[in-house]
């Protein structure tokens, strides 16, 4: 069975090919079922290989299956081959498993979309590329998958391409990834230059058994790290991930939560012998980058109103945890967290997709609220996901996060502190998300601030119009009275008109006063619906239609994956429970791939218990504060939602300003340099020739006498010259 490891990526590839070239006949749900079936087949193949592999002895758990020779050039021989070992199989299991669930979910989510077939084709292609990435037996196949997922990410983010913002987000993702790819490529070159081969078997075995020069290993490790931060959205190459939320939610779940973004951590785990041989500051760099990014992203997530943006920054933060783990030498913990994160983050994203689906595409949490009775299953599974990510025992997230924090304390207590603060923030913002979405009062029928503004504006305008009309009426009545002399009825009409005018003015003043005195409409109306008072009738149509249209639960194709993922989020911790050696299943399983580079935790059981309790307490604090702010309304939530956090520390804007400003100026200057200076030189030569020719033209005046004079002078000159050279 292990020899059939190539089946794992083959299924989604076949799915992609069939959907691209023959899919038109399949139509709507057919294409989706085909794609899901391909993923399911891939998952079954993975399970088969896994079962056989786990039946083998520890040292025997590595198998290379070569399909064909890809690039045989000079000393470089790269095959298309697959390395089935514990690490790659672990990745494959959750990629194919979670992937299949997300495919199933997408059938419901993308229902009615014109690009249904194209979506599933891309999704299958992505799965193929991702599987090649983790199964590749050399750096170049991994790179093939690496770039492949980048390209698919681009295609899927800009899936609804008629919207300029989506297209731009896709392009941004690809280019930011490419910056990381630069590092990866340089690392491959150096690896080849040093080892003469880029196959993992050669490189890692040699590094593990011998010693690579520190500078070389450092160079390779740092370059691979650059690649990893590009793909896994760490600082400073994280800017693409929040924008990537422009893609459909299943894409966000699959690519930007569970699979593609974990490639960086996979890569670093794969080359752990090289990191071990690198300089000491390299793991420290990795750890601090991860920790810093985790904290940084968590602060931003606190103030986001778009539900997907919260989850995006949360993903960046959790990936930071994984980098922190890698930097502390806790590879098992990193992989563990990767697996549990795949479960609960996919669950959270799919759940948010379900909410968005039920709310007809609205992603602003200010318009949510109280949805738990309208979408019970979504809410229930979402709560499980929340508990998992907040680190509440015994859900999966607690075990993996706790393991990372333990290793962080082992490495440097400061790192642990950063991790702890991040955990508190994580609990806070996730609780905030859950409360705003599922609890509290239902805000979807509330008029929105801009709608209220519009209502007041129209009311004021109407009042002004009424005053104008009334004064016009007064003028008309007065004119009429004057025309008819002292007719009593006319005079009475004037008086009546004047009274009416006074009333209109009073009404308008009243409205203006009310408008001036009205309370500001809150961004998130936690207390109660905004009091619009007298302008209730002026509210736009949308408000009443919203009130009639109730959010609803999603179809079974969307709900079933949520339930499965929720179960996994509950049970996921079982693979690596820290109590005894026998329960550390993941560690034993991954051992052959780690070459003994896993740091040994030198902490005693007591310390571990204390750390765990502190972490849980921190999480509880975060949850409590969020409950107080958003549910109990004892604390003003605006204390936490600072504008600078909402604007993500304004970094994205600075980068955009730079690219659009000095960046663009520099590029334009180069282009102008080319057309004016370089091309100008060429054209200048032509101009110079022309002007020289113009000068020389003067000799040709067409007059025979000039020519004759020239002949004469020349003849005389020749004679003189010859005479002077001969001696008589």
């Amino acid at each position, binding site marked *: 069975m292990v020899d059939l490891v190539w089946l794992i990526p083959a299924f989604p590839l076949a799915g992609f090919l069939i959907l691209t070239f023959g899919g038109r006949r399949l139509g709507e749900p057919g294409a989706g079922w085909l794609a899901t079936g391909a993923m399911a087949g891939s998952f079954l193949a993975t399970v088969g290989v896994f079962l056989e592999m786990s039946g083998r002895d520890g040292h025997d758990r590595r198998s290379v299956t070569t399909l064909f020779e890809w690039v045989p050039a*000079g000393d470089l021989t790269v095959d298309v081959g697959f390395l089935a070992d514990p690490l790659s199989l672990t990745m494959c299991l959750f990629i194919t498993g979670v992937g299949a669930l997300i495919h199933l979910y997408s059938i419901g989510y993308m229902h009615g979309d014109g690009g249904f077939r194209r979506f599933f084709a891309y999704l299958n292609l992505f799965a193929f590329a991702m599987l090649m990435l983790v199964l590749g037996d050399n750096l170049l196949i991994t790179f093939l998958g690496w770039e492949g997922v980048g390209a698919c990410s681009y295609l899927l983010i800009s899936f609804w391409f*008629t919207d300029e913002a989506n297209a731009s987000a896709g*392009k941004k993702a690809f280019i930011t990834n490419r910056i990381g790819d630069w590092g990866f490529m340089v690392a491959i070159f150096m690896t080849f230059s040093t080892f003469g081969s880029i196959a993992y078997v050669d490189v890692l075995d040699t590094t593990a058994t011998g010693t690579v020069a520190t500078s070389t290993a450092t160079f390779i490790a740092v370059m691979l790290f650059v690649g990893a931060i590009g793909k896994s959205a760490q600082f400073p190459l994280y800017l693409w991930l929040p924008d990537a939320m422009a893609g459909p939610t299943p894409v966000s779940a699959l690519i930007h939560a569970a699979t593609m973004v974990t490639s960086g951590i996979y890569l670093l785990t794969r080359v752990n012998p090289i990191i071990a041989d690198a300089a000491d500051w390299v793991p420290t760099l990795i750890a601090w980058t991860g920790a810093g990014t985790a904290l940084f992203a968590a602060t931003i997530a606190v103030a986001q109103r778009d539900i997907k943006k919260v989850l995006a920054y949360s993903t960046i933060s959790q990936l930071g945890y994984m980098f922190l783990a890698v930097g502390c030498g806790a590879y098992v913990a990193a992989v563990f967290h990767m697996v549990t994160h795949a479960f609960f983050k996919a669950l959270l994203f799919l759940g948010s997709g379900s909410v968005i689906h039920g709310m007809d595409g609205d992603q602003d949490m200010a318009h949510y609220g109280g949805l738990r009775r309208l979408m019970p299953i979504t809410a229930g599974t979402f709560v499980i996901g929340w508990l998992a990510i907040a680190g509440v025992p015994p859900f999966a997230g607690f075990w993996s996060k706790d393991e990372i924090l333990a290793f962080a304390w082992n490495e440097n207590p400061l790192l642990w502190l950063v991790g702890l603060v991040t955990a508190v923030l994580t609990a806070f913002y996730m609780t905030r998300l859950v409360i705003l979405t599922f609890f509290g009062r239902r805000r979807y029928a509330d008029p929105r601030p801009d709608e209220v503004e519009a209502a007041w504006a129209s009311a004021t305008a109407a009042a002004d119009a009424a005053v104008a009309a009334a004064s016009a009426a007064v003028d008309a009545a007065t004119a009429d009275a004057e025309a008819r002399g002292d007719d009593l009825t006319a005079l009475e009409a004037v008086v009546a008109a004047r009274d009416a005018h006074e009333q209109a003015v009073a009404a308008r003043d009243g409205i203006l006063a009310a408008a001036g005195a009205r309370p500001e409409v809150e961004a998130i109306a936690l207390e109660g619906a905004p009091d619009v008072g007298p302008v209730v009738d002026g509210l736009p149509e949308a408000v009443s239609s919203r009130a009639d249209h109730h959010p609803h639960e999603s179809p079974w194709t969307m709900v079933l994956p949520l339930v499965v993922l929720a179960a996994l989020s509950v049970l996921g911790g079982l693979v690596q429970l820290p109590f005894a050696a026998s329960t550390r299943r993941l560690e034993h399983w991954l051992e052959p791939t780690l070459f003994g580079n896993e740091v040994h935790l030198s902490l005693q059981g007591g310390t571990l218990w204390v750390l765990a309790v502190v972490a849980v307490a921190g999480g509880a604090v975060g949850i409590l504060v969020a409950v107080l702010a958003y549910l109990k309304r004892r604390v003003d939530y605006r204390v936490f939602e600072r504008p600078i956090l909402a604007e993500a520390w304004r970094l994205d804007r600075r980068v955009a300003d730079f690219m659009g400003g000095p960046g663009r100026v520099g590029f334009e200057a180069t282009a102008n340099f080319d057309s004016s200076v370089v091309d100008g030189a060429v054209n200048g030569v032509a101009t110079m020739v022309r002007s020289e020719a113009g000068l020389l033209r003067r000799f040709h005046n067409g007059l025979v006498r000039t020519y004759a004079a020239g002949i004469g002078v020349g003849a005389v000159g020749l004679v003189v010259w010859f005479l002077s050279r001969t001696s008589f």
Partner: protein
Amino acid sequence: MPVLASAGGDTFAVLPALVLVPAVGALLVAVLPRRRPELLKLVAVATSMVVAGMSAWLLVAFDVGRGADMQFVFRQTWIADLGVQWLLAVDGISLFLVALTGVLFPIALLAVDPGHDDRAYFAWMLLLEAGVMGVFCALDLMLFFLCFEVVLVPMYFLIGRWGHADRAYAATKFFLFTMAGSALMLVGILALAFLHADATGGGLTFDLVELAEAQSLGTATARWVFLSFALAFAVKVPIFPLHTWLPDAHTEASTAGSVILAGVLLKLGTYGFLRFGLYLFPEASHHFAPVFLTLGLVGIIYGAVVATMQHDLKRLVAYSSVAHLGFIVLGTFALNTEGIEGGLLQMVNHGVSTAALFLLVGMIYERRHTRQIDELGGLQKAAPVMAAMFTVVMLSSIGLPGLNGFVGEFLVLVGTFNAHRWLAVAATGGVILAALYLLWAYQRVFHGPADGGNAEMRDLNLREGLVMAPLLALIVAMGIYPKPVIERMEPAVDALVAHVEAHVDGFHESTSRFGADIAVDSGEGHDADAGVGHDSDGVGDDH
């Protein structure tokens, strides 16, 4: 060392046929009646198909085992007193360029109709094909120079008569610039031949193999002669700063003209560097390699930066060619097997993908009558098949693994890294810029909302699809399985590198050796910087 064996098809002189058939075809078209454009096109396409078939046969009949040898040799004395011969042969280096030419010409002829003066158009195209085949197959310096110059004339007319608004300027510029560059090459050729005759005391000869093996020029002289050759090739490639003819020529030429110009003609320069630069003047090539490497790097970055700011879609693709050819120059002057193979592979890859790009741009122009990016937008909605094809070709141009552009680019960079580390690190930055300008252009042209004429643009018809299909198939196939191409190139490239090593004192091909930096048994890793690999006593298996 390349041996001129008469190999393969010993009965059928395929190489002269490759040169003569298009020439005869051109003559035939020239005498056919002017008023029957369908007949003219039929004859022209048929001729180019015959040539394509012959080049395909050449690919198959090529003896892989003896790839370093010159095969299918054809030798006939031409001007006995001057030692000029009709000497044609192919080896691993020129084989795929011949095949590329054979493939691209029928596609260019089928894809686009000239619109007016069909007879002259087809005649010029066929004559161009004959000239190009001559360049790639010629092993006699005079014959090579003749064909090198001959290709300028049809191209001048193709740009000047069937091009766009500024065609006269572009055609003249192209012709004069290229000819000025190659004027000195003639002097160099004559100098080489005469000095060789003086040194050996034998008769005058222009036979490339003989001249290259004899190496009878002094170092300083060889460097000067090399420069004269290099100038001609540098303009043709084009290398910064001699590149400014290219954007104008590409933009103003008609679609077929651009396809051939970018797909085939640019390769004359890079091929010239390999076949004549490195082979004839190994020491001079090694001496001037840093200059060309730097210029190649500049071309990569500069070409990409300028491409980003273009408003004309065709001009953008033209500048992207400058960037891609910078990679080829980089690989060539890395002077090792991986680099040169990468450069050769990129010649073929660039030919295919840029030809495809120009075809697609031409299709857009034909429908929308504009090449300005600002006037295009949202085309994917109206023409999804075209958008899909453009995506594939664009990703190939960006160098996505799995498509053809990646393997060549990767080999170039690996080779350059082994030879000059930091140059390669800088050149790899070019891949970021490539993504930048292509994706931004794609976004502005295909994504976003469509309005007006953009919304009603029609998608590909059958003929256009058939024309694009072989190119797309090649893009994918060569990306997934480039091995047959590489294994045919490799012996010839190895021989070339060995030739350079043999004639340059103290130069060894920079490549990696297993175990160069590793101490396997003990833990004492010497902290030496991972130097450019030199032959070390390989510890452990040589993989």
